[in-house]
């Protein structure tokens, strides 16, 4: 498949948005709406976070939870988005699935880095250590290494369409780390606390902490989709430029 074809055609017309030109129209409309939603959610989330009471055990360090937990959730959600894109790339060989996969990886790496950095800054006053090689922290560090490896792999090929299949396969192989991260606190004795929000029937925190946390998580999610659509739009433009350059080169 030539780069030109990789942009202008697809193996299936089942989904309107799978057409890159239609996707560009959709992204141009969706990005401003998502950006406004992100700003609104961050405004509400930060207001509620900074007005939450001091925790009786953790004091004001509970404020770190409002940015650490959403970053950790997004680190895993981004990888799940990449895995779904990888399936689209392998099964339908659709170029837009590859575009989605490769543009989500840097965002996932940023969220994972933030989860580790803010976790470390939370761990020092609470546990007395910046880092511990326990199952949760180590598995998140492995996720960051996987993200960096996938970014490197996506840049290792001159022709983006040649990288699509190896990238998709490696992404699916790496998905094994997601359940390990999720259940690491149940499977092993860890310094990290077990899940406290996902038990929605009996969440282990009061509403004064739960609601700001959930709104901050929505803000992070809205930010992810805003940045992901923006990055996908950039990648589609990059491929169009590349296709035009090749056309010009062929003309001599």
């Amino acid at each position, binding site marked *: 498949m030539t780069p030109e074809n990789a942009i202008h055609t697809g193996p299936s017309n089942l989904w309107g948005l799978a057409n890159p030109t239609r996707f560009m129209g959709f992204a141009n409309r969706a990005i401003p709406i998502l950006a406004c939603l992100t700003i609104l959610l961050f405004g509400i989330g930060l207001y509620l976070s900074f007005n939450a009471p001091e925790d009786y055990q953790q004091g004001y360090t509970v*404020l770190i939870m409002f940015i650490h937990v959403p970053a950790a959730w997004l680190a895993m959600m981004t990888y799940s988005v990449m895995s779904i894109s990888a399936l689209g790339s392998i099964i339908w060989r659709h170029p837009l699935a590859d575009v989605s996969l490769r543009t989500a990886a840097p*965002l996932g790496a*940023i969220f994972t880095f933030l989860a580790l950095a803010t976790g470390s800054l939370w761990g020092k*006053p609470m546990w007395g250590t910046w880092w511990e090689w326990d199952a949760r922290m180590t598995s998140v560090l492995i996720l960051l290494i996987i993200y960096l490896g996938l970014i490197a792999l996506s840049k290792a090929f001159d022709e983006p369409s040649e990288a699509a299949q190896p990238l998709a396969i490696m992404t699916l192989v790496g998905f094994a780390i997601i359940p390990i991260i999720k259940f690491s606190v149940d499977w092993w004795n860890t310094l990290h606390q077990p899940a406290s929000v996902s038990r929605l029937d009996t969440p282990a925190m009061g509403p004064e902490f739960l609601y700001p946390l959930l709104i901050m998580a929505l803000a992070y999610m809205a930010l992810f989709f805003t*940045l992901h659509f*923006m990055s996908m739009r*950039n990648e589609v433009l990059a491929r169009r430029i590349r296709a035009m350059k090749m056309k*010009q080169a062929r003309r001599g």
Partner: protein
Amino acid sequence: MFGEHAAFIIPSYLISFLALSIATLVIWRTYSVRKKELARMEAQLEKQNT
């Protein structure tokens, strides 16, 4: 504000703000650069065709 833990809370928010802001700016800047480049190439191609 934030009591004795300010030295941990402020850097946490600062790192998050900086990382996410820089990512947003880089992505936005890339978009404007590529859009201009594509427009320039399209104009060049149109010129060649006429």
